[in-house]
């Protein structure tokens, strides 16, 4: 037959659109996605001075990474798997990798959009402060990738969307707890810098209140996040399933 085969070009946009529709039709996700950045933005207006800038900005970034990326990826992938939707998508022309990447990309893009709003407000309020936007971008990108892959890995241990409320706790603790601790204690908190939250916070610190050796610090933070991402990839390869778990 002379018909062109392989992945149709429209597949990825269609998958993204369907997934965005599904996300926004889920009330919990829709409310979190729209209200969270607004509330966090309002919180920022209460912050004043550079001493508070690092914890305030870091916690906003981490909250969005934790909830919009990590929790959403875990919850939605688990429920798509449990309703056999993942398996169905595997029956069409696009490869399983294309399908998975498209589904994960939607919460990731949503988070980047939220962060853009929140950080735009934040940077305006902190206007007198000199901010290295590049470091902020690095924090957002590296953090988003790490949390997305970790979300995929967590689905391997999650049997239902409700179960995700429990299985996501350890990593959320590492993310938010590590970040909060690192923000309060400061750059000296070595062990906390090895948590994903600590590394993101440190990147934010490099952006807002750079001390000595910013580049070394940035590289360390990126290496830490890469390490967590790699760990998540290894776990995901072993545990990710396309079919419902009983």
């Amino acid at each position, binding site marked *: 037959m002379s*018909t062109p085969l392989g992945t*149709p070009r429209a597949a990825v946009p269609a998958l993204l659109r369907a997934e965005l529709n599904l996300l926004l039709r889920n009330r919990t996700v829709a409310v979190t996605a729209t209200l969270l950045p607004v509330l966090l933005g309002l919180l920022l207006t209460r912050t004043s001075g550079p001493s508070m800038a690092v914890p305030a900005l870091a916690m906003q970034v981490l909250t969005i990474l934790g909830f919009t990326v990590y929790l959403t990826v875990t919850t939605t992938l688990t429920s798509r798997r449990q309703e056999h939707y993942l398996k*169905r*998508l595997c029956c069409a022309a696009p490869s399983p990798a294309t399908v998975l990447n498209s589904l994960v990309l939607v919460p990731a893009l949503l988070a980047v959009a939220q962060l853009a709003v929140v950080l735009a407000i934040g940077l305006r309020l902190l206007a007198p402060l000199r901010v290295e936007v590049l470091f902020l971008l690095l924090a957002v990108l590296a953090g988003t990738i790490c949390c997305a892959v970790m979300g995929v890995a967590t689905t391997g241990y999650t049997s239902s969307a409700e179960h995700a409320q429990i299985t996501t706790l350890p990593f959320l603790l590492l993310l938010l707890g590590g970040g909060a601790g690192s923000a309060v204690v400061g750059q000296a908190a070595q062990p906390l810098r090895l948590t994903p939250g600590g590394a993101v916070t440190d990147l934010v610190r490099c952006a807002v209140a750079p001390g000595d050796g910013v580049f070394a610090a940035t590289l360390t933070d990126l290496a830490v996040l890469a390490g967590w991402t790699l760990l998540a990839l290894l776990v995901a390869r072993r545990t990710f399933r396309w079919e419902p778990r009983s």
Partner: protein
Amino acid sequence: MFEEVVDVDGVRCSYGSYEAVRGVRFDIRAGELFALLGTNGAGKTTLLETVEGLRPATRGRVRVFGKDPWQRRSEVRPRTGIMLQHSGFAGELTVLETVRLWRAMVPNAKDPRAALETVGLRHRERVRVKLLSGGERRRLDLALATLARPELLFLDEPTTGLDPESRRASWELVAGLLAEGTTVLLTTHYLEEAERLAHRLAIMHRGEIALSGTLSEVLAAESARIRFSVAARAPGLPVLAGEVERDGAGRVDIRTASLQSDLHRVLDWSREHGIHLSGLRARQASLEDVFHAVRESDGRPGRGTQQEVKFR
């Protein structure tokens, strides 16, 4: 084009230490409908998913269009349509959104609305999928599986949960695809479905193919039946080719390979003695008889190999 669209040889599939498919061999020729029958847990779905390329075979060889459907997925998958046992719809998408998503996922798809028209779901296009009835979901499923006019169509229990009218409509749709030259691999619980649609069929039991062939070949494996009742004190029956069972109440059950001649002898005998045969029934074995025979043959020795197995 390959004459043999599907070629399965010595395929085994295991989940950990459990072997769901234990050495299966069959082939499907272009344009035919091959039905895979079997009890729950016989390994039908596992075998089907292996042929679909959704899982690799643990052992043995699977070829679809002459290629390994697992290793060379991207070449095989676009030419097939798959209807899974569980539909796997996203409940919050509408019917039309679902078909549109699928149109983007397969090459050369039909118009979504025309596809919905074919399965009688056009009037439900704005309804969210979670609100559809079981039968409507199955019809939507069939619309998606056939959306790209696949050369090879897999149907895993396509009419389970349908009312008789929808089932008939689905059969017509499948018959139409067959007429256009589509090759079909079907699993079903409904023997009538296999009898109506299948060119060839196989009966699976405990991970093996117990019996396969055309419908008449498969039916020939099981004896025809003659049944009637006579008065308890009626004289003895004539010598017959088949096996006779007669109980104290006068009920007679004959299993025979030569239905016509045995029936003649029985009728001659009844006329000679002036005996009334009440509730007389004579019929060829049905697929149901064959199916039950396979099930009852459980645990008999010598049932290790497939296809050549004979049983009574």
